């Protein structure tokens, strides 16, 4: 059934976003999780909250789909949209950092490299990007068939 794929995707994405979200919130509070370095998790309390929300949207999709509610795919779609939005946000932040380094030459940015601005928001968003292109219009057509 077409929806199983989406359910698995939503489950994975949901858990990833919730976990990363909690990690970001913890780091934001100053609690070291030891994963900050390897996963590039910034200390960002509110950004973390937003990730938890995205994760919740995905997990809600799993809830509905597993109960057989076809409309549950709506939540997968919205989850994907939101993660793409946030990916755009973090890319813009990266752009701003770039400007600060190259054009403004601010001292806070001495020795900055692009990798410093890479965030989970960006690489997790790639996952959603794949989901989006894979399913695209099939979201609605698969709906109306039912």
């Amino acid at each position: 059934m077409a929806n199983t794929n989406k359910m698995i995707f939503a489950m994975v994405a949901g858990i990833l976003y919730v976990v990363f979200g909690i990690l970001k919130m913890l780091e934001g509070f100053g609690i070291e999780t030891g994963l900050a370095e390897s996963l590039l998790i910034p200390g960002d309390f509110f950004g973390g909250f937003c990730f938890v929300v995205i994760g919740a949207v995905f997990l809600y999709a799993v809830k509905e789909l597993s109960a057989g509610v076809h409309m549950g795919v709506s939540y997968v779609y919205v989850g994907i949209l939101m993660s793409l939005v946030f990916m755009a946000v973090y890319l813009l932040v990266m752009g701003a950092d770039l400007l600060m380094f190259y054009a403004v030459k601010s001292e806070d940015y001495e020795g900055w490299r692009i990798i410093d601005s890479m965030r989970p928001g960006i690489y997790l968003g790639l996952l959603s990007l794949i989901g989006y292109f894979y399913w695209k219009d099939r979201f609605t057509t698969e709906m109306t068939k039912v």
Partner: protein
Amino acid sequence: MEKKKITIALAGNPNVGKTTLFNAITGARQHVGNWPGVTVEKKTGKRTYKDTEIEVVDLPGTYSLTAYSLDEVVARDYVVEEIPDVVVQIVDATNLERNLYLTTQLMELGSKVVIALNMWDLAESRGDKIDTRKMEDFLEIPVVKTVANRAEGIDALLEEVVREVDKGEHHEHEVSYGDDIEKKIIELEGIVGKDSALSGKYPVRWLSVKLLDGDENILEKIEGSSVATQVNSVLSTIKKDDYEAAMAEKRYETINTVLPQICVKCVNEVTFSDMIDRAVTNKYLGIPIFLAMMWAAFEVTFTVATPLMEFVDMFFGWLAGVVAQSITNPVLGSLLGDGIIAGVGSVMIFLPNILLLFLMISLLEDSGYMARAAFVMDKLMYKIGLNGGSFIPLLMGFGCNVPAIMATRTIEDEKERLVTILVNPFISCGARLPVYLMLAGAFFGRNAGTVIFGIYILGIIVAILSAKLIRGTVVKGKPSPFIMELPPYRLPTLKASAIHMWEKGSIYLKKAGTIILAGVVFVWLLSAIPAPGVDAAFASEEILGTEDSLIGVLGHIIEPLVAPLGFDWKVAVALVFGFIAKEIVIGSMGVLYGTGEDEDALAEILTAGAMTPLTALGLMVFTLLYVPCIACVGVVKKETGSWKWTLFMMVYGTALAWIAAFLIYRIGTAIGWGL
């Protein structure tokens, strides 16, 4: 050869792309003003097509031409009194039925109408096939397909418009209201027709229909005439409510018999919009999703604005340098450098911040999401006596309160509008940010961000509680019914959103160029004029911005008022100048503490003893709550039309600010925090 001149009016439902079409037709040749006597915005523009000069008047978006709201009265009066050569109705092809309701009313008015069938590409992609030929046949009105946001069909539209003007013959179309009502209409026509003043000016049938419709505006017009008593006696024989509803239904009946022949619809499918709405209006997820989107908007605003602000700063620094080098006269140099450039510069620096926030809000509005957000927040708004309609104007306050207060014009209920205007200043605008950044940055270091966030939240809380309080006492009433159309989601075009951003943000720019410029010069003058009894030259080094200038005199007079809050005379003066523009507060302090442009130096002096973390916090809270800038006060007066309420807002805010700062200072001192 002399150019022919005609005037056309653009009418249509809200959300049909009327403004986009208006922009596409008139381009840069636009003028925004007000309809006489009311606060409804009037947009006019010009366009030359072949050998005709066209004046375009943009009427307010309305669902019909009755007199329920000010917008409708304005639109209706214009068509009836000013009689434009042609009325172009922009019809949303994806909502034919409801849009045609307005068409029936325009036809009854006897105007020459041309229909611009907008967004027909969307309709077709949805599977609706619209036969414009048949439409023209049934309505006896030319129909032109347009896609306003791609500027398609404009020339064809203008061609039809020009052609329509030349057509002498004209049909007055009639919706048949059924035998009973038609009988009454004929009766009234006979009566009204006798008064030549009325019948000469308005179509007789239209007057009769409107009278039966219970149109108060028309009733007023009749009152003064010779046939008033006769009309009223006829009207007293009918049940108004029944007639109104019946007539509206008849109009829809007419439309519905015609519609299936004009438009073939496909099966209703589940759309992307419906799917998104399912998640976005979800009972539990709706508000968190909204909060997340808000965070995203603010995050982009602040981080992307930072390098842009640096650019503005560098520009003004360079400008100041150029001025310093080329101007030899020290007085003029100081006026330009320390006064104008520093002052205006401190305001312009926040332009990227404000424009970006408005861009984010415009993108959210144009995508259609904002309407959903208003719905999600409606429940909460209900608790404070407002409804979802007050939501967007309050949200805009985070950029600048001036356009935010102007945006309250969309709120229909007068009382709710008043309350929304009165509490708007508590939403911390972009202009107050420099004060927070400087003080929080200097005194709270790592926690600066959290403190500033706290101030914003405080503003929101005060706004909410004040709304509840005012609604419960001085401006009593129940929240008016909230109904908002949720248009299908669409990907916003950068161009359209940029235009909307500019509509909101340019007001800030105008404020900077005028009031703030004048204010800053005024501040400089006060700081340059020697105080009485001081023996020094005007604008000389010794007195500029020190106690020995008029500023010092002013400061010492005010000092006792703020001493209980832990502020000294310099802070007092800065706050007074904050009335001119909040951005000037920091600039004035720079002048008064002798650090000029150098914010780091100012921070050092303040932390070294001029202020304490406690008084800094008090100052931030005071800045948040007290009387807003003069531009804002001016707008409040204009939009409320009342000095009483404007003064109330000013006094209420300042009193609240004083009390809050007082409590902070006293309690803090008592428990020994932040000293």
